[in-house]
């Protein structure tokens, strides 16, 4: 499980540390406060571990510049701390890059500098030094840096490196799933040969392909997903995926229609299906390994009356010891926040300089308010931050 995140010079995250993460963590904050920048940084690490670093940087830069506006002479630093089961060893992964320099490098190699293995790039414009590595707390392990830019991901995950490294690398990717705020399952999707059947796309566009693969190859996982789908949405009697050689199609049978197929499927239903698929996709490969599910604004499209049940379901997922999972969520919705504990919430805000700050909900809130009021109700009193001016 991720226990601590630290960012320097990553977009609006000029210098941010987020400690004591819980299995279920929700980030709240006004629009443009920096919630998505936190999620993007994790998605960047995921890409970094599956692709070459330069590709990940180029991809991220294509979306938006990744270095804090106004900062030109300092590198970007991302650090994550992870508690690895079963011994609960603390592992940290840290990355230091200069995207501008990185883009000018033609080759990468490691060099021992000041007793540390440092990543060095050589290009037409000169030399650059970057740092990317794991640090394991404990006796006799010390600093060990992996050549993340040059070593294929398979070598990290298949036994050449110590167990803790492999677990963290797996956890960040491929055992992580990301869904953005508008992600949704389509009702039908044409065949796409390059589709990833094990990982859901951030916009949910390949949900049906993942589900079809699950239905065919992991029927027990698919059945479990359907059970939860029916539990969460009382109107759903059954759902299935069909593939006719040209397109994959979702069929939902509804109770109000006496089990007949619904002619259309609601947006909220499709979004919920994408979220469940993101979670259950992790059960299709090495389910016993810890997994991470990051969902932006999961409450979008869900009726307020469903939110309690939905959060309870997520909480139950985090308690499955045979398949340890961590959820990182964002929300704007006080009604959604009502079902979280203060220690599960991080408040994101931006100061006058445009820099993001992340804080915990004050401990006193529980004692003062929560005997009678939900956390979301208290949020609206401005007892803690995260609301627009």
């Amino acid at each position, binding site marked *: 499980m991720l226990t601590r995140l630290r960012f320097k010079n990553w977009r609006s995250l000029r210098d941010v540390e987020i400690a004591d993460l819980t299995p279920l963590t929700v980030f709240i904050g006004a629009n443009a406060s920096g919630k998505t920048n936190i999620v993007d940084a994790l998605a960047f690490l995921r890409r970094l571990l599956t692709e070459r670093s330069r590709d990940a940087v180029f991809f991220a830069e294509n979306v938006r510049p990744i270095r804090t506006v106004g900062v030109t002479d300092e590198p970007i630093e991302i650090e994550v701390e992870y508690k690895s089961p079963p011994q609960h060893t603390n592992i940290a992964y840290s990355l230091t890059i200069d995207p501008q320099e990185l883009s000018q490098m033609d080759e990468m190699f490691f060099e021992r500098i000041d007793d540390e293995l440092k990543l060095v790039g050589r290009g037409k414009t000169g030399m650059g030094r970057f740092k990317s590595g794991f640090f394991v707390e404990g006796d006799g392990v010390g600093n060990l840096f992996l050549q993340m830019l040059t070593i294929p991901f398979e070598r990290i995950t298949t036994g050449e490196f110590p167990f803790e490294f492999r677990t963290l690398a797996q956890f960040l990717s491929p055992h992580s799933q990301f869904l953005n705020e508008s992600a949704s399952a389509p009702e039908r999707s044409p065949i796409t040969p390059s589709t990833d059947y094990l990982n859901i796309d951030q916009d949910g566009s390949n949900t049906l392909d993942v589900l079809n693969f699950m239905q065919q190859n992991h029927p027990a996982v698919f059945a479990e997903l359907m059970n939860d789908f029916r539990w969460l949405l009382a109107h759903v009697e059954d759902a299935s995926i069909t593939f006719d050689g040209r397109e994959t199609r979702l069929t939902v049978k509804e109770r109000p229609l006496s089990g007949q197929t619904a002619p259309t499927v609601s947006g909220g239903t499709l979004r919920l299906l994408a979220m469940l698929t993101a979670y259950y996709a992790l059960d299709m490969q090495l389910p016993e390994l810890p997994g991470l599910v990051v969902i932006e604004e999961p409450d979008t499209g869900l009726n307020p009356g469903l939110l309690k049940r939905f959060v309870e379901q997520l909480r139950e997922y985090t308690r499955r010891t045979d398949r340890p999972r961590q959820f990182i969520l964002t929300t704007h919705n006080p009604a959604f926040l009502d079902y979280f504990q203060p220690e599960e919430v991080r408040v994101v805000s931006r100061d006058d300089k445009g820099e993001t700050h992340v804080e915990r909900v*004050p401990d*006193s*809130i529980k004692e*003062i*308010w929560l005997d009678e*009021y939900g956390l979301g*109700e*208290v949020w*609206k*009193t*401005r*007892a803690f931050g995260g609301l627009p001016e």
Partner: protein
Amino acid sequence: MARIWFIAEDDSGFQIARRILEKRGIRVQVERLLPTGSNPNIFQLAKQIDRLIATVRQDKRWSPQDCIAVLHDWDIHKQPDRTAYDTIRAACERHKQEGLPIKEVTAKDEVEAWLLADSGVCAWLAQKPDKKCDTRPKPKDMLDNWCKDARKPPYKSEKGLKEVVNHIAGDGDRYSPSLREALTHLKNAPCIQP
């Protein structure tokens, strides 16, 4: 800089008070806390007053130089049942007795009365300052009507409130005794810098 923590009946009252302090050159950092609910009101304020005060006192930014202002409408024309107002007054008194720098600040009959006599707001809405503003039964409705007559966004909308607040000159105490009293309270508060 010391802070003044407004525990306000609703957000519009807070925004008006903050702007008046600013226009009067009163140097203080201002924070706000509101009762729960989408449309907080005097009953929620009365029910939650102790929780709200406790929240301020537990805030990590709270310092002994800070003070608290509990801001609400007096509503004498529309609320014959004074229980909620008595509860708020008693709570403020109790906390004051315990040494907390707290003031109850009331507007007669609503905080919008202070704006009916404000030269900036009146000029913007092409109205003469109302010399009897504190005795009007429904100042909020009056202000809303003034906005509509001037073809401005209605005061009761978020946009209208923002526009009105932007035009406050902060001199409504010429004709509003309740604002005069509120400003006297606030100027003498220990958190206000001379």
